[in-house]
């Protein structure tokens, strides 16, 4: 009975158009942010930061970027890893080639480079759809894999092709300890999530969704497919590129092109499908699920004392992900996010059945 919108009347369109029109949702969000920003840094263990929270946040950001393209604009991409790599290597080059380059600026520039490449590989989307686009984005994936391995300039001529960064700081505050890394990622992710949400509830977001749902009708009411698709590619790759920078700089510290292989692209796509196509919270739910499930399954035999080989567990994870993807596509294409909102809907009506 606590979760009700009864009595919360909106007296202006501005009030009706806020992200969370229901009071309880705003409270819940405030609480969540409080936990994330204040409680977590106090109680979280190093394992929790390094192995769960930081990768979760960064992957959620990348999934968010991908969701704009796939979930909102309906353009499939199997090359997300490539755009992450572009962001990471571009930022790396800005850092090593320009003295005193601040981390934030390098990160944004990395994102911009990813945008350029993303738009470039998005151009085929103007002529081709769904299935074909998958191949075009795969081309981006394999080409960047090769380029970062092969073209010495990108890796500052490191002999093996692996590169590393050190002594990260933001406005003089070192980003070294797990907590500071976590907080840095959290701030970035929250800002981007807010901006993504704003975009999706604005005119541009409606343009993307219109193109996704019915491109001919969208064109007929005056939406330029070229503009809508390319902006989706641009915004998506920018976010993905920034996520790539975080993944490389903050999470790994030292990396090789394999960190952004096609496996990463698939992993992100799965997050988006499982979490929910076309929703911001879906990216977070999907990322949490994909990060936590293998860890939990890994631990399960340990907790229960059942001897299952680690390989079997890993295969099991594959099978569960595969099955869940099919399951969600069949039963609930809007993924965990939709299940969540259905749950909320039920709560709103509780105890009445309808």
């Amino acid at each position, binding site marked *: 009975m606590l979760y009700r919108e009864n009595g919360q009347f909106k007296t202006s369109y501005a009030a009706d158009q806020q992200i969370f029109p229901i009071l309880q949702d705003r409270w819940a969000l405030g609480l969540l942010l409080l936990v994330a920003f204040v409680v977590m840094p106090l109680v979280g263990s190093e394992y929790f930061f390094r192995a769960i929270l930081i990768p979760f946040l960064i992957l959620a950001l990348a999934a968010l970027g991908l969701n704009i393209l796939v979930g909102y604009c309906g353009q499939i991409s199997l090359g997300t890893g490539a755009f992450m790599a572009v962001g990471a290597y571009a930022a790396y080059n800005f850092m090593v080639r320009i003295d005193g380059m601040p981390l934030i600026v390098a990160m944004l520039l990395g994102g911009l480079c990813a945008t350029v490449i993303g738009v470039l590989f998005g151009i085929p989307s103007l002529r081709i759809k769904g299935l074909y686009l998958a191949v075009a984005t795969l081309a981006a994936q394999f080409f960047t894999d090769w380029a970062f391995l092969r073209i010495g300039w990108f890796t500052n001529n490191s002999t093996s092709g692996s590169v590393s960064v050190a002594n990260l700081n933001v406005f003089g505050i070192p980003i070294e300890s797990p907590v500071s890394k976590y907080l840095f990622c959290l701030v970035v992710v929250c800002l981007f999530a807010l901006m993504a949400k704003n975009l999706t509830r*604005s005119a541009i977001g409606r343009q993307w969704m219109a193109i996704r749902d019915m491109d001919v009708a969208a064109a*007929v*009411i005056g*939406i330029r497919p070229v503009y809508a698709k390319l902006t989706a590619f641009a915004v998506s790759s920018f976010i993905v590129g920034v996520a790539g920078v975080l993944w490389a700089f903050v999470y790994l510290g030292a990396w090789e092109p394999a960190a952004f292989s096609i496996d990463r692209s698939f992993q992100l796509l799965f997050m988006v499908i499982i979490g929910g196509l076309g929703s911001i919270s879906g990216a977070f739910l999907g990322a949490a699920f994909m990060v936590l499930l293998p860890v939990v399954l890994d631990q399960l035999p340990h907790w229960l004392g059942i001897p299952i080989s680690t390989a079997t567990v890993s295969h099991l994870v594959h099978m569960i992900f595969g099955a869940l993807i099919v399951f969600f596509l069949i039963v609930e294409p809007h993924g965990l996010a939709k299940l969540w909102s259905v749950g909320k809907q039920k709560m709103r009506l509780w105890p009445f059945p309808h």
Partner: protein
Amino acid sequence: MDMTDINPAASDAAADSGRRFGDVILDLQNISLRFGGVKALTDISFDVREHEIRSIIGPNGAGKSSMLNVINGVYHPQEGRILYRGQERKRLEPYMAARQGIARTFQNIALFKGMSVLDNIMTGRNLMMKSNILQMALYWGRAQKEEIAHREKVEEIIDFLEIQNVRKTPVGQLPYGLQKRVELGRALAAEPSMLLLDEPMAGMNVEEKQDMCRFILDVNDQFGTTIVLIEHDMGVVMDISDRVVVLDYGKKIGDGAPDEVRNNEDVISAYLGTSH
């Protein structure tokens, strides 16, 4: 054009009134359209005057929808000229047609299924929204003002179409008749000077049809919107049209006021299937 003073029930009987016919706004000359070897339209010419309700009728497969698709640039005819407001149109994409003030509904509802009624109609305002991506990302200043201003307009349309209670429902969950109405609303939101309606009353019951007729007449009457209408229900067509063009097998077989067309030999035979 102002939508604030709409009174939906005011003009039921506008059909026969002496309306403000304007000049020819759209002139189609010798249009031919082929798909591979299949001829969809053959040498069709007709015009549309400002403010009139111009209907296109004909049996299934006559090329009616193709005709609309030619008008708003979804299809590009191989032959013929199209003059819009006296200017010849070269190859024109649908979004450009929209910019010139041509809006459209579809035979098979072409709503954006994943979006709410409100958002669907808001897309119709798209051309009038000018804020850039950065402003939208921050949702601040111009972007927010625009959202609110256009929301007000959209709410007027929602009131006009009497769909207030479903404004936040995803359109996919609405019954057929309401979806058709939302689609009309989306087209209206663009404040078009010409509205192409492709079987807006198909699959509706009598009551729904009456509602739809009323909306069409109101739009035509109050905003002066030119309407090109495809409809199967002869009663409706003959009642509300100013002029009717008849297509059969991609050819024009009749053109004129409803009464003329009704008595045209070719039209009768095409509908009754006596010759061919």
